[in-house]
């Protein structure tokens, strides 16, 4: 949204509920499927009020059957409805990858356009005290699949705008939020507004290094930029927002200005988001100093000490930037 648009401070969950409500009103074919999204309003209350307004035929509580949930959402979308399927945690997307990847992502191509699957799979990534099978970030897997769009907001305003676009997209979209975003509040434009996919946002301008990230990690990355500023390093923070399509132009332009790129993600590094954006940016900016920051190669424990130790945070991000800019300094993360 343009910064001057009138906006009101809303919780992340409220922004999601508003996007859903508006799109449910606009598109009577839109169905919502998910565990505990009806009377309960969703595990994070981001579906609150929707059952009351739209009724149980359009807001459907499902069994714990992620594979079938996504299969139904995809099938209904292919048959003329539009659907949003809520998969509580991204770890539980695994059983549902078959309908999403083997069917939905292929559908438009394989039927030569006779069918398409305008389904939104909304799911929650990342760690917040729930342990090894409730904390993973699988965005990179999804970016690897042609035919899927993948978006990951970091703020209520973007969640609102990106979800609206997702709910109007011609094919499957995975909308990835994060457990730590739900307690957050931030400005959401008062007027109806969708944010197009494929547009990164510069969250902080800087001259010395570009920090690229997405989703929740935007916040520790901004904190890292602030601490770098105290140390006299001017960091630009680029938030990707849309992972597929990827806005390499904005990122490469920033990296070309700063000459250095640190790719930050909460997920695992090998074949991760950072590996991809590093490759793509270097295609545009060959002489670039590049580093990446991500999870340590260990499962994410529910133990708060171990969880924190395994994931990137502002000090580690800042340390990576400092190391990149002054390779001789020999700091450790």
């Amino acid at each position, binding site marked *: 949204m343009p910064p001057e648009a009138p906006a009101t401070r809303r919780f992340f969950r409220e922004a999601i509920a508003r996007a859903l409500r508006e799109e449910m009103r606009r598109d009577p074919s839109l169905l919502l499927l998910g565990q505990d999204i009806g009377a309960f309003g969703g595990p994070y209350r981001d579906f609150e009020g929707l059952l009351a307004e739209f009724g149980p035929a359009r807001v459907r509580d499902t069994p714990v059957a992620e594979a*079938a949930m996504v299969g139904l959402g995809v099938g209904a979308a292919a048959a003329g409805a539009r659907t949003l399927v809520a998969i509580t945690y991204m770890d539980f997307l695994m059983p549902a990858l078959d309908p999403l990847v083997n069917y939905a992502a292929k559908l438009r191509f394989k039927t030569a356009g006779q069918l398409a699957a305008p389904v939104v799979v909304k799911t929650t990534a990342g760690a917040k005290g729930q342990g090894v099978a409730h904390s993973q970030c699988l965005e990179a897997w999804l970016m690897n699949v042609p035919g899927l769009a993948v978006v990951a907001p970091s703020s209520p305003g973007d969640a609102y705008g990106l979800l609206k676009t997702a709910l109007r997209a011609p094919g499957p979209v995975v909308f990835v939020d994060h457990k730590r975003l739900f307690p957050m509040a931030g400005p959401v434009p008062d007027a109806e507004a969708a944010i197009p996919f494929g547009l990164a946002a510069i969250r902080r301008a800087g001259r010395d290094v570009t920090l690229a990230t997405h989703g929740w990690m935007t916040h520790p990355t901004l904190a890292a930029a602030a601490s770098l500023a105290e140390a006299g390093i001017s960091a630009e923070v680029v938030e990707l927002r849309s992972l597929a399509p990827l806005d390499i132009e904005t990122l490469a332009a920033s990296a070309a200005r700063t000459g250095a790129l640190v790719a930050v993600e909460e997920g695992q590094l090998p074949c991760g988001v950072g590996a991809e954006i590093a490759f793509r940016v270097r295609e545009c900016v060959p002489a670039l100093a590049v580093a990446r920051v991500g999870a340590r190669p260990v499962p994410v424990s529910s133990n708060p000490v171990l969880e924190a130790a395994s994931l990137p945070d502002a000090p580690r991000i800042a340390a990576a930037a400092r190391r990149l800019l002054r390779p001789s300094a020999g700091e450790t993360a």
Partner: protein
Amino acid sequence: MSDAALLRTMLLCRAVEARLAARPDCGFQLFSAGEEAVAAGLCAVLGPGDQLLCSGRSIAPALARGLDPAAVVAELLGRTGGPCRGRAGRGHLAQPSAGFFGAHAVVAGNLSIAAGVALAFQAAARPGIVAVLFGDGAAGAGALHETLNIAALWQLPLLFVCSNNGWSISTPAAAHLAPARVADLARPFGIPAATVDGTDAPAVRDAAAALAAGIRAGGGPAFLEAVSVRLGPHSTSARESRTRADLAALAARDPIARLSAALGEALAAPLRAAADAAADAAFRTAEASPPATADELDDAA
């Protein structure tokens, strides 16, 4: 649909598959020989407002559903005259405008998709029903359980049809499926279920009609098990794993021979000739269709 029409459909399926099998360039195919009565009997009760989904064993289902045989053959041969412009082939053949929502080559992968189509029908108050055809092998997959449960809870207009040919590739049903009857799997969910001789096309039609009527009347999902035979090997690339004696016993259950005998050679012979002619014509038309070229890929992104 009359018994003669069922025979006509089955003969067309057999004739098309036989011609395809004879071609060196036929590609990787799964044939329905022996299972035509399931496709024909089921499709006899589906109307234009209904949709059919099936597994990768799709040729007979597509033809029985009434797709243009020339277009089906074009698709199988990778020609742009196919409904999917030769991109999908047998494994993913689809023509939703003709009520054939499509094949999906992932075993059991079409079950929840079909339930989704039924959900869209229900949500839009569309009158049709959705049928999904799968094998006994698919019945061991968790997708069936999840889909039965949701279809029952939500009373979806969905007809589950299992063509139980007794084999998952080389594995006999006794080794891959504990229940003696696949239809028993539907019962805990309160879903009406029947088992029928799948080599008896009129019997399949009549059983499907009864179940479909219940669905159309708002009774929610139903389940039909058709006990069928697979006359040939699993696929064009699979070795035949059954003995000669086994195969001879199966051949005696050929649904086409059975219905031909019932209707009499005087009726069957001209139908056979017509099917052969239709199949020949379909291949001629299909071969005149231009092969898909790499340009198709430009449409993918």
